[in-house]
C-alpha cells in the first residue's frame, strides 16, 4: 500500500511546491527591475551558501552544526526519497544511504528541538515552534519507510496500521518540507534564501568582499520613483531578500534602537515587508513587536503605501544605520538599504523628515554644513595653525579632510591634535579650507538623495582641481562616503581614516612617541569605520604603540554597539525608553576603563553627552598627540657634553 501511496504523496507535494514557487516568484516580480546576472548568480550560489553564509552562521557554533546536520540530512534524504520512494528504485545501497541521511537529519532536528525548548526572546515562535517536530516527522517517517528497502525489515512489516501511521508522518513531513517551502511556511527561508544568495543586490559582499555604500538614485530618470513608497517600488531582488528571512532575531539582538526601546525591530521590519509583498496583516507575526507598538494593527499589500499602513514613520527614523543587523544576518539581508529607500520617499516626496531633519537639510543646502554656520567660519578652528591650503599649494601628499566637526568646539580639539601629529611627522599635507563642503553623509541617511548628490558632485568638482595622493580624515562618516559612495559619481580616491594613517606613520617610525600615562583604556569601534569599512585593527595598533593594553568591551569589533549618533538619529530623535549612548557607556563602564578611545566625532559627541561621572572620552588623535615627544626620534642617543669644571 505504501508503495503506491508514497509516490503520490511525494509528487503531489512536489507539484504543489512548484506551483507555490511560481506564485512566489510572481510576487517578487512585482518589484522593479534590477541588474543581476541570473545564470552567473545561480552558479555562484552553492559557494556563497557554503562559504559566505556559513561564515556568518558559524559565529554561533551550536546552530551552525545543527544546521549543517539538518540541512544536509534533509537535502540528501529528499533527493534519495524521490529516487527510492518516488521512482520506486528499491536499491539496497540507495536505501541505506537514505537511512543514514534521515538519521543525520534527525540528529540535527533533535538539536533544533533542544534549542526550541526554552527559546531566547529573539527567536520567533508560532509556526517556528512546529518546525523541529516537522523535521523529526519527516526524518523518522522516511527512516521507517526505508527500513524494508534497505533490507533491515521485511517488506510487509507492521501491517496496515503502521503503514497508515507512516503515511500520516510522511504527509506531515512533505507538507512542511516541500509544500510549505514555497507556500510561506518556515521552510520558505531555504527556497527564498538560496535564490536570494544567487541574485543578491550586492554580489560584491561574497568571497570576502565588502559592499556598504548606498545605491544612488537616478534623479535624471523622471519615471523612476524617488525612493520606496509601496512594496512594489523595491527592486525584485530586494523583495526576494525579505522573503529569505529565517526570523532568527540576531538583528533584533544587535539593534541598538530596539534595545533602547525605540519603535524599531529589524526582524519585524523585514517581516512587515514580507506582509507587504504578499498582502495581509502583521497579526501572524510571532516574534517581538516594535517596542511600544502592539502587533496586529498594521496591514498592507504591494500596491499600498508602506508608511502609516504597514509601518509607522518613526520606526524607519529610529534606525542609526549602524549595520549591526546586516552584519549579524545569516541570510545577508540588507536592512539598512530598505530603510533608507523608504526614508528617501518620505523626504523627497512627502517632505516629512521628522524633528530637526528639515532644518538640517535646509542648512546643508544653504550653508554646506548641517548646523547652518556661516561657511566662512569653516577654518576658524585653525586660525593660529597656519594650515597649508590646497588652493595655494595645488598639490600635496595628504589631503586632510576636516569634515563638519570643524564647527564643533569639542571636535576642534581632535582636529588640532591631529594637525599636531601631522606636523610632528612632517607630512606633506594641505586642507581644502573654505572649499570643503559637508560630505553629504547626513543628507543621504536622512533620505535626501538630491542634497547628497548636490554636495557630492560639488566636492568631486573641487577635488578634481587638485593633485593629491590620498585623503585622510578624522571622521569615519566622511571617510565612508568619500571612499565608498563618491565612486558612483566618478570620484575615486584613496581615502584613509586617521587611525589607519597614524598606524602607518608609527609603522614607518615617523613619530617619536612616548607612552600613554595613567588610566586604563578601552576602545569604541565606530560603525562607519568598523562594520562599514572593516577597519578594526589600525586603531588598536595605534593604541598598542602608545603602550596601551585595550580592555576590550564584550561588544567590540564587528559586534560593536552603535553610539546612537549615526544615520541622522540625533536629528530625527525618536523617543525610546533609554538613550543609546547611555547603554554604550554602560558597556564601557563594565570594562572598568577610566578612558575610552574613540575615532569619530559623532561617537565623541554622543558619549560625552552621557552625564558624569563617567570615563573620559578621547579621540585617538588626542592620545597620540599627548604622547608625542619633542625631540626627533633618532636623537635618543645621550647628548655628550663637556663636563663643567668644578673647583
Amino acid at each position, binding site marked *: 500500500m505504501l508503495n503506491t501511496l508514497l509516490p503520490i504523496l511525494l509528487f503531489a507535494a512536489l507539484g504543489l511546491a512548484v506551483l507555490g514557487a511560481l506564485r512566489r516568484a510572481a510576487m517578487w516580480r512585482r518589484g522593479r527591475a534590477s541588474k543581476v546576472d541570473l545564470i552567473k548568480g545561480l552558479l555562484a550560489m552553492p559557494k556563497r551558501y557554503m562559504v559566505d553564509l556559513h561564515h556568518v552562521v558559524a559565529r554561533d557554533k551550536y546552530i551552525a552544526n545543527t544546521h549543517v546536520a539538518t540541512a544536509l540530512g534533509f537535502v540528501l534524504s529528499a533527493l534519495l526519497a524521490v529516487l527510492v520512494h518516488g521512482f520506486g528504485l528499491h536499491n539496497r545501497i540507495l536505501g541505506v544511504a537514505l537511512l543514514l541521511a534521515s538519521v543525520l537529519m534527525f540528529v540535527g532536528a533533535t538539536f533544533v528541538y533542544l534549542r526550541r525548548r526554552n527559546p531566547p526572546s529573539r527567536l520567533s515562535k508560532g509556526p517556528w515552534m512546529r518546525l523541529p517536530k516537522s523535521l523529526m516527522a519527516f526524518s523518522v517517517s522516511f527512516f521507517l519507510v526505508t527500513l524494508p528497502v534497505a533490507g533491515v525489515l521485511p517488506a510487509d512489516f507492521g501491517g496496515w496500521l503502521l503503514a497508515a501511521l507512516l503515511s500520516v508522518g510522511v504527509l506531515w513531513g512533505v507538507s512542511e518540507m516541500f509544500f510549505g517551502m514555497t507556500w510561506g511556511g518556515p521552510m520558505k527561508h531555504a527556497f527564498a534564501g538560496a535564490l536570494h544568495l544567487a541574485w543578491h543586490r550586492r554580489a560584491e559582499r561574497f568571497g570576502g568582499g565588502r559592499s556598504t555604500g548606498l545605491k544612488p538614485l537616478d534623479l535624471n530618470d523622471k519615471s523612476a520613483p524617488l525612493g520606496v513608497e509601496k512594496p512594489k517600488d523595491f527592486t525584485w531582488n530586494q523583495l526576494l531578500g525579505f522573503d529569505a528571512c529565517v526570523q532568527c532575531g540576531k538583528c533584533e539582538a544587535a539593534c541598538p534602537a530596539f534595545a533602547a526601546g525605540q519603535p524599531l525591530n529589524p526582524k519585524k521590519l523585514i517581516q512587515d515587508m514580507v506582509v507587504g509583498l504578499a498582502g495581509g496583516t502583521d497579526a501572524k507575526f510571532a516574534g517581538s513587536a516594535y517596542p511600544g507598538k502592539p502587533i496586529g494593527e498594521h496591514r498592507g499589500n504591494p500596491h499600498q503605501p508602506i508608511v502609516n499602513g504597514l509601518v509607522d514613520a518613526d520606526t524607519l527614523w529610529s534606525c542609526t544605520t549602524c549595520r549591526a543587523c546586516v552584519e549579524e544576518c545569516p541570510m545577508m539581508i540588507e536592512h539598512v538599504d530598505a530603510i533608507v529607500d523608504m526614508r528617501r520617499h518620505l*523626504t523627497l516626496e512627502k*517632505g516629512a523628515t521628522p524633528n530637526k531633519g528639515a532644518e538640517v537639510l*535646509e542648512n546643508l543646502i544653504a*550653508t554646506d554644513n548641517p548646523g547652518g554656520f*556661516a*561657511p566662512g567660519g569653516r577654518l576658524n578652528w585653525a586660525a593660529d595653525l597656519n594650515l597649508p591650503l590646497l588652493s595655494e599649494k595645488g598639490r600635496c601628499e595628504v589631503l586632510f579632510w576636516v569634515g563638519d566637526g570643524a564647527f564643533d568646539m569639542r571636535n576642534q580639539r581632535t582636529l588640532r591634535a591631529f594637525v599636531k601629529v601631522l606636523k610632528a611627522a612632517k607630512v606633506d599635507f594641505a586642507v581644502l579650507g573654505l572649499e570643503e563642503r559637508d560630505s553629504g553623509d547626513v543628507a543621504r541617511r536622512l533620505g535626501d538623495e538630491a542634497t547628497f548628490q548636490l554636495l557630492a558632485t560639488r566636492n568631486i568638482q573641487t577635488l578634481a582641481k587638485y593633485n593629491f595622493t590620498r585623503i585622510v580624515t578624522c571622521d569615519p562618516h566622511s571617510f565612508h562616503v568619500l571612499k565608498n559612495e563618491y565612486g558612483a559619481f566618478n570620484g575615486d580616491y584613496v581615502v584613509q581614516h586617521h587611525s589607519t594613517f597614524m598606524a602607518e606613520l608609527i609603522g614607518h617610525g615617523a613619530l617619536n612617541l612616548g607612552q600613554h600615562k595613567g588610566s586604563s583604556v578601552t576602545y569604541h569601534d565606530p560603525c562607519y569605520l568598523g562594520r562599514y569599512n572593516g577597519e578594526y585593527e589600525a586603531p588598536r595598533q595605534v593604541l598598542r604603540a602608545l603602550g596601551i593594553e585595550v580592555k576590550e568591551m564584550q561588544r567590540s569589533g564587528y559586534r560593536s554597539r552603535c553610539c546612537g549618533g549615526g544615520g541622522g538619529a540625533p536629528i530625527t530623535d525618536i523617543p525610546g525608553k533609554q538613550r543609546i549612548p547611555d547603554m554604550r557607556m554602560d558597556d564601557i563602564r563594565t570594562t572598568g576603563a577610566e578612558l575610552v578611545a574613540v575615532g569619530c566625532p559623532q561617537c565623541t559627541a554622543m558619549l560625552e553627552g552621557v552625564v558624569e561621572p563617567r570615563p573620559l572620552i578621547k579621540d585617538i588623535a588626542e592620545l597620540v598627540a599627548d604622547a608625542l615627544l619633542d625631540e626627533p626620534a633618532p636623537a635618543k642617543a645621550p647628548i655628550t657634553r663637556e663636563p663643567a669644571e668644578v673647583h
Partner: protein
Amino acid sequence: MNTQVISLVSIGAHPTSGRPRRAEQDARAVELGLQMAGDKLQVLHAGDIAEPTLRSYLGMGLAQLHVLEQPPGADALPVLSEYLRDAGAQVVLTGSQAETGEGSGMLPFLLAEHLGWPLIVGLAQVESIESGVALVLQALPRGQRRRLKVRLPFLATVDNAAPKPRQSAYGPAQRGELAAHEVEVEADELFTGAVLQPAKPRPKRLKVIKAKSGADRMKAATAKASGGGGQVLKGLSPEAGAEAILKLLLEEGVVR
C-alpha cells in the same frame, strides 16, 4: 472655506551664508495659505523665473507658481496690484519683510493702499471666514493675540507667529510648474536711483538689571507691559463697584 487666497513670495537669503533660499516669512505665508485654501491656493512671485530657489516653494506641494516676469530692479508694486485686482483675490498673504532687495517692509502697506484694502500686520491664524467677513487672530508682542473682524478682501502680513512652514520636498519641487506671465516692466526708481550702503547695527540700549532675585527677573521677562490705566476703587457700595466694572467691560468690548 471657498476663498480665493493668494500668497506672495520672494527670494530669501540665508542669514549666515547669504545664499538664496526660500524666504522664512514668505514660506509661512504659503503654509498659512495652504492651511486655508489647500490645493486652491495661488502663489505669486514677481521677478526672475529662472531663479532655481523658486522651486523650493513648489516643494511645499504646490502644483503651480505664477511668476510675473521682471528683471532685477523693476518695481513689483504696480504689476502685483494689477494682478491681484484682476485675479479676484479675497485674501492676500505675504511675509512682513523681504530678505533680499530693498527689504523695506513697505510692500504690503503700499499694496494695500493701491488696492484700497485693509491690511493686517502679523496675522497668526484665520479662525473663520463667513459671508465676506473673516475672524482672524493678530499676533502681538509677548505671545498675545488680538481677535479682529475684517471684511474681505484683505491683505495680511505674517511674521514668525504664523505656523511653521512645511518642509520643501525635492519631488514636488521638480514636478511643479512655474507659470510665466508677461507684464509691463516699470523701473523701481527708489531702488535703482539710490545708492545702497551696508546698514549699521543699531546701538544697543544699556541693560540695567534692577531685579534682585530670580523671581524678579522672571517677572521682568514675562510680565505684560503695564498700561498704567488702572484704577483702584475703595470703599464703594456694591452697586457702584459693579457699575464701574461693567463700564470697563463695555469699554474693552468684552460685554456688548
